[in-house]
């Protein structure tokens, strides 16, 4: 991990995790003691399809440097189809952010099952690293509230 490289920058990262797979995957990462940076803060949602693009934009508005959405693997959604909708919605949202010139690496979707503690941890490590490489969210910072 190259986190020591930039001690000044403590990114704010919001992770939306579905209750059934990814939140449990995060729990498994925890009980397996698979470390990932403390910059990641998890919000539990029932399903990835509960995540409204407004939540993600709101996180950026309030100063987040990265937002990641985790849900069950396609086909494994606890509610059958939730993540399919989430997948299309997020594809659309991310493409719009990219189109507007906001770095697309600041948003990510990853499917993490309840059994994938390792994947959860690696994903978070990777994502934090990515955000470090992108640095502070200057561009979206321009979109941010003044305080």
């Amino acid at each position, binding site marked *: 991990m190259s986190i020591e490289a930039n001690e000044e920058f403590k990114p704010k990262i919001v992770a939306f995790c579905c209750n059934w797979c990814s939140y449990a995957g995060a729990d498994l990462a925890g009980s397996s003691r698979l470390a990932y940076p403390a910059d990641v803060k998890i919000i539990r949602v029932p399903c990835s399809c509960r995540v409204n*693009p407004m939540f993600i934009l709101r996180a950026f*508005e309030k100063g987040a440097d990265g937002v990641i959405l985790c849900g069950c693997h396609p086909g494994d959604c606890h509610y059958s189809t939730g993540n*399919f909708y989430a*997948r*299309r*919605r997020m*594809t*659309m949202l991310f493409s*719009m952010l990219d189109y507007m010139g906001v770095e697309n690496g600041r*948003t990510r979707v990853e499917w993490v099952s309840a059994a994938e503690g390792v994947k959860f941890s690696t994903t978070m490590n990777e994502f934090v690293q990515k955000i470090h490489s992108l640095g502070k969210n200057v561009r979206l910072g321009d979109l941010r509230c003044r305080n």
Partner: protein
Amino acid sequence: MQELIARAKELLADGTVARVLGWKAGDLPYNPEPAYFEKEEDFKDFVYNSFCGANLSKFMIEASKLEGKTLVCLKPCDTYSFNQLLSEHRVDRDKAYIVGVGCKGKLDIEKIKKQGIKGIKSISGAEISDEADTLTIDTIYGEKTCAFSDAMLERCHVCKGKEHKIYDEIIGESKETKDAERFAEVERIEAMSPEEKFAFFRKELSKCIRCNACRNVCPACSCRKCVFDSTKFDSSQKANVDSFEEKMFHIIRAFHVAGRCTDCGECSRVCPQGIPLHLFNRKFIKEIDELYGEYQAGETVVEKGPLTSYTFDDVEPGIVAERG
């Protein structure tokens, strides 16, 4: 136009319709307004010319609640919006008598004025019966001319075709006015570097005054109460001290109409600050076409749109980063 008026009067007289939704001449040569006509004598002001750009389909939401049928004049592109509204149960087909009116392209007075033409007294060449390619404009500073196509609304340059997608009868000839690629502008932006893209949108959106005209005119934005007007998201319908709200408003608006927007172009037509708002919606249309298969909202009445359906093998959101 006379045929249209005659037919409208006939349908009013025989009780088929209770009112007619069309356009009323304004007091300048270029400012007709949408209007209802209920009595024969009202028709003295009825007008249908190349300045009648407004898409009347959204008015049918309210008109559907009125007693009796409303005759509504829809241009070919407006019929897509009507179909979409039908799909969403926002209008009542039984309350509409749709007259598909001919269209040969609609004019944007701003584009005429941009050419330095001011003090306009009259404009000829804008009648629906006119065949001329040139508008002749009489101004207090003398007579000016302007090519019809140079004064056309942006949407007419990417015209979806002269076919009405839903109608009870058609009156008048239509002409396809397409002379540009629909996605050319979107592609131009896509080809920019992230810095250029950001600069482009920031500059354009910095003009936004949050008048909400784009939203209020949009047939897809048919919410009774917009999420930006409600307290549910702590979002504001008015200008905020920070600039993010404007961007959020436009991104979310585009997202909410994604898969439902027919690309009628009303948003760009009405923006008082000339923001090319269609570039947001058209980006989504392009993405939907490319990622989920060609889709034209409002082509027919459908139950599910691209964002309320899925396939198992849909691309992952990571595609956005991968294709760079």
